[in-house]
């Protein structure tokens, strides 16, 4: 294992994050505050508690997931796409670094940044609502697994993307609808039966549901099923990545 290389990539990526720290931190804090003002205060005051949880608290896990997914996919994809775009990828490819080490460096940095922002959202949320976490270790498990899985997903998007339009296609057009329709702001029990059934095809539902369960012990689906779904998605991504490494798809051809 070339640990020096993993460290180099990781810290190089984190240095990029440090350079844009203000933008990285202030922007999610402002948008989260706006969500709480609009949904928590304005709309939430007219909505009854959901299964004994105030509406403001209920939407917190969904908001954290929304940010975590967006940040991890964005960081994971940009991290590998940027060297491809500028041409500096030659250095990574000609170094004595295995693809596993490349992934550890890039995905590790993307997940770290995503989790940092996620924790900032959690801290911001706690300024607006009373929050308690029923199962901190389960919460941490969902949090870390989701960050790693979606950073890996972003990494694959970054390898696949040929231009900035493709790079932003999934993070901008696919992820937000999935998160919004995945029960971020409501319980799917509030939907008509047909849309409840449709929602079960949305993978993000399982992430939000499991994550919310770790806070309030309320869930749209069994948390074990949620965990299984995340692990299954992670396994699919790792399989895809193995194929990419073996063939050199869009990297070594």
């Amino acid at each position: 294992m070339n640990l020096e290389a993993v460290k180099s990539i990781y810290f190089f990526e984190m240095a990029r994050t440090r350079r844009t720290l203000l933008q990285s931190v202030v922007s999610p804090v402002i948008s989260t505050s706006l969500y709480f003002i609009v949904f928590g205060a304005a709309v939430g005051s007219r909505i009854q508690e959901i299964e004994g949880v105030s509406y403001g608290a209920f939407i917190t896990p969904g908001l954290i997931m929304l940010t975590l997914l967006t940040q991890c996919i964005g960081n994971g994809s940009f991290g590998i796409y940027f060297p491809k775009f500028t041409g500096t990828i030659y250095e990574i490819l000609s170094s004595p670094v295995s693809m596993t080490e490349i992934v550890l460096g890039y995905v590790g940095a993307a997940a770290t940044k995503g989790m940092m922002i996620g924790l900032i959202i959690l801290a911001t949320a706690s300024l607006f609502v009373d929050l308690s976490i029923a199962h901190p270790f389960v919460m941490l498990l969902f949090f870390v697994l989701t960050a790693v899985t979606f950073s890996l997903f972003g990494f694959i998007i970054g390898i696949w993307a040929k231009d900035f339009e493709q790079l932003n296609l999934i993070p901008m057009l696919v992820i937000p609808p999935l998160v919004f329709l995945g029960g971020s702001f409501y319980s799917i029990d509030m939907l008509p039966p047909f849309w409840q059934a449709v929602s079960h095809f949305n993978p993000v539902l399982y992430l939000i549901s499991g994550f919310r369960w770790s806070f309030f012990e309320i869930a749209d689906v069994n948390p074990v099923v949620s965990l299984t779904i995340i692990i299954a998605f992670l396994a699919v991504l790792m399989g895809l990545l193995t194929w990419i490494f073996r063939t050199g798809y869009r990297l070594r051809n």
Partner: protein
Amino acid sequence: MAPIVSVSNLVKTYASGFQALKDVSLDIEEGEILALLGPNGAGKTTLISIICGIVNPTSGEVRVGGHDVVKDFRETRSMIGLVPQELTTDQFETVWNTVSFSRGLHGRKPNPAHIEKVLKDLSLYDKKDNMLRELSGGMKRRVLIAKALSHEPRVLFLDEPTAGVDVNLRKDMWKVVEKLRETGVTIILTTHYIEEAEEIADRVGVINGGKILLIEQKKDLMKKLGRKELRVDLQEPLSIIPETLAGYELTIEDDGHSLIYDYNTAGERTGITTLLTALAEAGIRLKDISTRQSSLEDIFVELVGARA
């Protein structure tokens, strides 16, 4: 002594069907400077990219220091430094950080003393805290060399190192290459500039259409293929070459004021003495005589032109 780089029957066909390398074989000896000459699309960069691990070969074998570049990639890539053709840099990084990053990528522990030495050797030390975007093109080129040297490689690939660089900087770069050679680093450079190969290379390879056309010691190549030209300036211009001189295959230049005679120095007889006698017998009065050795450029054009 076993070659430091050995390429055997290398073939690369891209997904588009374009065959960039067609059964290329060559050996590179430790400590030498090899210049690979070739026109655009000849296959130079593909060859380097495969040796360095950036591009997968379709078939064939490449060994560096006795190790296979695919199976033993850690060993081979640790030995190699690569300076790419394009000025590809992280614009928002400092010189020091980007060079240190390269060292780390190659699995080497941080060594500020070595990084300092490399930067000083390349006259970059006073720019160590500058961001790359603040540097000139020539400075960026030096940073790429510093990055390639950060992990103390045994083999250095310079892909068009002086492309788009002004004459002074090009000469500076040659000095850098010369200094590197003194440290024992094997250098393989691709270039469009024949004078560059002529100036610094020990051996010259010519590649075109994905094939190595020849690879020889520069001196031997110049001797073997080098032709000389005798230029005879006349007192009175000639409109046609007299019948008695037809066997010399002379050409007329400068509106008849000069006659050009090509001869091969490797030949037993150059024909100069008989030509001068024949000129005198034909009553042609001479003003001046000069000779010119054909350059590597002439040889290159002749080779590539003949086999295109």
